[in-house]
């Protein structure tokens, strides 16, 4: 939404509509939280700002529908989630198959491979040197629904029940996505850590490459890839890894090999 000068003038003589002030007071403290999540969802600041603004305008419009005493922050997130789905996910792409037993297995493999390093000094922060771009890429490699659950639980600190409400799904689905989403994210981070030498020392050049990636977003290359980079096997391997990640980014809908709903006994 863009403002005309006339509209701006109107703000100057802003009225005292009480509900508006209430809303502003209640909603503005959450703007950073919403923006951060919006940024992770849309992957750029411009779209994130648009999404947050649209969320606020909708929330204001329906403010009288908000039930006093329920969780206002969760309500805002729910509106944002719905807005995001309407705006950004209209075009359904071909489902991408995910094999969860494979994820489970590869997670165990990665854990085993890294076990010696983790045993050596489990208290040290083995990931502290990891580039922000790598962390971001690891998050973006998650299927959208899993990414959302991880963001809401681990970044925003919502409870399972609140997440279920925001996403309009059963608590069991939240848990199942959280279980898998965290696993996928951990696995990817451990793989990066290993690949770029954050875990095992001595892979300094890898970090330099990451820096380059950060400055210039990776685009999937086609046939030129092999010719230009075949000389450097290390680099080439990395190229393949990112090409695969790019492919995933273009796919928004995922189809699951296993049943999505998994039972976890809490009691």
């Amino acid at each position, binding site marked *: 939404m863009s403002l005309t000068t006339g509209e701006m003038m109107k703000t100057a003589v802003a009225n005292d509509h009480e509900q508006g002030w209430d809303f*502003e007071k209640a909603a*503005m403290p959450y703007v*950073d939280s919403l923006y951060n999540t919006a940024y992770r969802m849309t992957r750029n600041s411009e779209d994130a700002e648009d999404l947050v603004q649209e969320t606020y305008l909708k929330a204001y419009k329906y403010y009288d529908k908000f039930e006093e005493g329920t969780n206002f922050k969760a309500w805002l997130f729910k509106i944002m989630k719905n807005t995001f789905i309407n705006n950004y996910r209209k075009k359904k792409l071909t489902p991408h198959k995910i094999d969860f037993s494979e994820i489970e297995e590869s997670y165990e493999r990665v854990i085993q491979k890294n076990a010696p390093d983790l*045993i050596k000094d489990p208290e040290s922060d083995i990931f502290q040197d990891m580039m922000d771009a790598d962390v971001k890429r690891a998050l973006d490699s998650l299927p959208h629904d899993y990414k959302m659950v991880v963001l809401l639980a681990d970044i925003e600190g919502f409870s399972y029940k609140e997440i279920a409400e925001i996403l309009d799904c059963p608590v069991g689905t939240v848990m199942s996505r959280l279980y898998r989403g965290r696993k996928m994210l951990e696995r990817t981070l451990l793989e990066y850590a290993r690949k770029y030498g954050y875990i095992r020392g001595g892979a300094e050049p890898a970090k330099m490459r990451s820096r380059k990636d950060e400055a210039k977003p990776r685009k999937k290359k086609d046939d030129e890839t092999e010719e230009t980079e075949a000389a450097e096997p290390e680099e080439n391997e990395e190229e393949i890894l990112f090409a695969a990640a790019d492919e995933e980014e273009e796919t928004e809908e995922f189809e699951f090999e296993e049943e999505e709903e998994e039972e976890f006994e809490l009691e």
Partner: protein
Amino acid sequence: MGCDDVKRVLYFFLDGALGDKKSRSVNDHLNLCPDCERRSRLHQQLRAFVRRRLAAVPASDKFKVRLTRTLRVFRVE
């Protein structure tokens, strides 16, 4: 409770979402099993890391001003 059972509920244990009885058995297991204990610490470490790294994109002041202004205009209409 065996290692496989613990692995399945470890995240939920760490979230404090398990019932008392189950939570106690996980706890007992972790005290006895270094493998699972290490895994538990790894989960926690990674969670803290992800939280630290991914929570760091606040909205710009410029945007906040614009948003507040837009809301006020919206209110007038």
